[in-house]
């Protein structure tokens, strides 16, 4: 194997890598991206716990909290092991953080949270939010989210994010104080812009289309995979019946008994092996899901661009119409329909003083309008520039991560095949002793 020094080559070459090792590699890659935050602190979501308490409407509820730990990087390498800073957060607080980031950095592809409810489940997997397996997978997903944010060059420097990690009490108030909720765009406004914008940046339109396709194809993949997992489970489990029948049969046979009995054990082992196999596959599904949700974040950036562009276009349109009005007023020609025009025709012209006043008002409006257009233009340009940088960054990250995911999928399949070969070779030996 060529010595390239990249952990990716190490991943490819080592076919005995387990999914958790693969996940560690991913984390290492993020850490080595070297944001200043991650250079200083090690972040993890170490545990999950059930709590009960009163909710907003004073009813008892059970919910899960997750322990966030921050360890200084130096301490780990020096060998000392001080108690990490830690605090407990629940899922809704993560959601709040993300919503804040979405509003505050609309030009960034904000990393997604693990799903709120279990979807694309195959029958054995619980869809219950309190199920320990689901909680565990969510814990991993939340940690992943924090690391993604912490490894982002812009997001990692956000103060609210930092206090999310460090200030257990009063953090919520701090977030609300930023007034971010007021800055959030209404859905309706965004939808409106999507339909009416005239000249969006072509690249963003393509990106949005790509986001749609990505979401659609990953959804399909997850659905098909869940169904196939279900079926595969059935195939393996039915072999357990061989174990039972061989065992019963061996009781009535003399020479064949031993061979049958031991073959039966291997059939039981085969049937049991599917649980581990599918658990590993679930990890792969989670990797796919992250990018399913990333697709949404990508589309959000494109929609924001459309909105920004639309508002620029609106401001420009408004300015043009005001200028036209001024022209008409100045030259006395009426090119555009206006109520004033009609009424003045019906009820007589305005006085020169009135016209003067009107003109003055229009001038002010035009001045303001020009300012607005300049502002919005700058905003738009700024947005396009920053967003495109982040989109490029996202593209590279996506290509890398998904390729790793496919490789780890292949490794999983290989592991499954190796187990199968072993079991059936063992069974064959037992059968030949029948």
């Amino acid at each position, binding site marked *: 194997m060529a010595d390239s020094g990249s952990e990716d080559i190490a991943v490819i070459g080592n076919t005995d890598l387990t999914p958790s090792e693969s996940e560690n590699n991913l984390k290492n890659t993020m850490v080595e991206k070297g944001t200043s935050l991650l250079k200083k602190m090690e972040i993890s979501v170490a545990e999950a716990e059930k709590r009960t308490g009163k909710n907003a409407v004073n009813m008892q509820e059970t919910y899960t909290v997750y322990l966030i730990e921050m360890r200084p990087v130096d301490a780990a390498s020096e060998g000392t092991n001080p108690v990490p800073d830690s605090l407990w957060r629940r899922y809704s607080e993560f959601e709040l953080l993300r919503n804040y980031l979405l509003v505050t950095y609309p030009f960034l592809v904000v990393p997604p949270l693990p799903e709120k409810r279990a979807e694309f489940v195959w029958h054995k997997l619980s869809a219950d939010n309190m199920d320990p397996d689901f909680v565990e997978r969510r814990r991993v997903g939340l940690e992943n989210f924090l690391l993604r944010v912490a490894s982002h060059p812009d997001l990692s420097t956000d103060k609210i994010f930092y206090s999310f990690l460090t200030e257990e009490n009063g953090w919520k108030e701090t977030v609300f104080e930023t007034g971010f909720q007021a800055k959030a765009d209404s859905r309706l406004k965004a939808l409106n812009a999507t339909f009416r914008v005239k000249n969006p940046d072509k690249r963003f339109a393509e990106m949005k289309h790509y986001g749609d396709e990505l979401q659609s194809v990953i959804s399909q*993949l997850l659905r098909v995979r869940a169904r*196939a997992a279900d*079926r595969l489970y059935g195939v393996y489990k*039915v072999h357990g019946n061989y174990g039972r*029948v061989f065992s019963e*049969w061996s009781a009535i046979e003399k020479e064949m008994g031993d061979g049958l009995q031991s073959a039966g054990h291997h059939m039981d082992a085969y049937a049991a092996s599917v649980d581990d196999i599918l658990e590993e596959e679930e990890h792969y599904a989670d990797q796919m899901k992250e990018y399913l949700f990333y697709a949404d974040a990508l589309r959000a950036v494109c929609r924001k661009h459309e909105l920004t562009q639309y508002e620029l276009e609106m401001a420009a349109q408004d300015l043009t119409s005001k200028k036209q009005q001024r022209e008409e007023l100045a030259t006395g020609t009426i090119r555009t329909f206006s109520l004033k025009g009609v009424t003045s025709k019906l009820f007589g012209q305005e006085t020169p003083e009135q016209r003067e006043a009107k003109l003055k008002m229009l001038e002010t409006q035009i001045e303001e309008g020009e300012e607005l257009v300049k502002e919005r233009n700058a905003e738009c340009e700024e947005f396009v520039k920053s967003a495109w940088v982040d989109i490029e960054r996202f593209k590279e990250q996506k290509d890398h991560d998904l390729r790793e995911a*496919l*490789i780890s999928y292949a490794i999983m399949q290989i592991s499954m095949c*190796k187990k199968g070969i072993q079991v059936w070779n063992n069974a*064959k030996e037992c059968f030949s002793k029948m």
Partner: protein
Amino acid sequence: MMSGSVVDNTVSSGNSSAAIPTDISGQILDLDEDDDLEVFSKDTTLTDGSSFNASMQTSPASMINQYKFEEDADTKDIFVTVDNPESHVTAIETYITYRVMTKTTRSEFDSSEFEVRRRYQDFLWLKGRLEEAHPTLIAHPLPEKFVVKGMVERFNEDFIETRRRALHRFLNKIAEHPIFSSSEDFKIFLTAASGELTSHKKQGPGFLSRMGDTVKAVAAAVRGVRNRPQEFTEMQEYVEAFSQKISSLDKVTQRIVREQKEYLEELKECGPTYALWSQSEEELAEPLKNVAGCVDRCCKETEEQVKNLSDHLIPVLHEYVLCADTLKAVLRRRDNIQADFEAKTEALATKKADRDTMRNDLDKAEDRLEWANNALKSDWTRWQKVMRTDLRSAFVDTAERNVSYYEKCLAVWESFLHSQRTDAEGNGKVDFS
């Protein structure tokens, strides 16, 4: 104990099997249901549509070792194959014949090679004759008649092929049986031209006599056996348990096939999804297409694995399910022979008239019983050995095919990994940050 020659305590009728007791009361002859649904009339003088070769005059040594067998190849002196199904259409019916080829060095055969065409009916006839002559020997089962399960068409290729293989196994099992293989009926089956076979068939006990035997047999069954020897009771218990277990295995295997097929259906959609995705991507297009190809190849292997199970393991298990039924029938027949003997013993003790005749009958019944018991005992041992060999090799074969399936899939995914490795090296892509 049982040797190639059989105690002849009977008057043989013409050239039938060496040991048909004249008094065949007490022997159950299962009144077969109507033969093949294919036949509209019981008249078997219809022309066999194909031409046949009577004994092929080729060198006896030629191609004797062409076929593989489980028994010692060097002691085997007769090789039988069933192949080449052909359909025949006449005014009244349509039916399938199979080519039966025999190669042998046995002296009782006029020649060393024979080729004839036979239909399912003929096999049924042969089995019936063998069971008639040796009610307590264990004959390998024939494939079932066409059962309307709603899915298989009678002339469906798979059905014909499955049946052909089973017929082949049946004849080979007969050929390997020390007693059955020296049966005259067997010889005629393998060698006679169709017309000869037809006329020979007519010489057997007629319909009415079979009817009469059945009535007597039912009567015997009703009487019941009083003092069944322990070893036969044990046999019966074993057969019961064996029958259950083998049926379970048959069902489990069929269930596995069903689940595999459903898994395959879902898996078939995975590849195309990855392929679709690759169309939206640039850098990822190649690995995605690659994965799509891998999944598709695994699908093909899975398909073949399912076919293997259906073609190799299931037929064997199924045959042993039928074997269990055969064993039950054999034990029943033995019981009836004993019941007949017991009845005659009782009769002699109680009746006063005809004592000489009855004594004679009783002696014959006693002989018949002893002969039946001995035949069963030694054939039982032989059958167990054969069963063990058959099932062992069927399961070993299945395990080997499963290993091979996983090895092939393993290779598919390893080649994907290899391509990704060389890709990364080749493109100089070392730094993904």
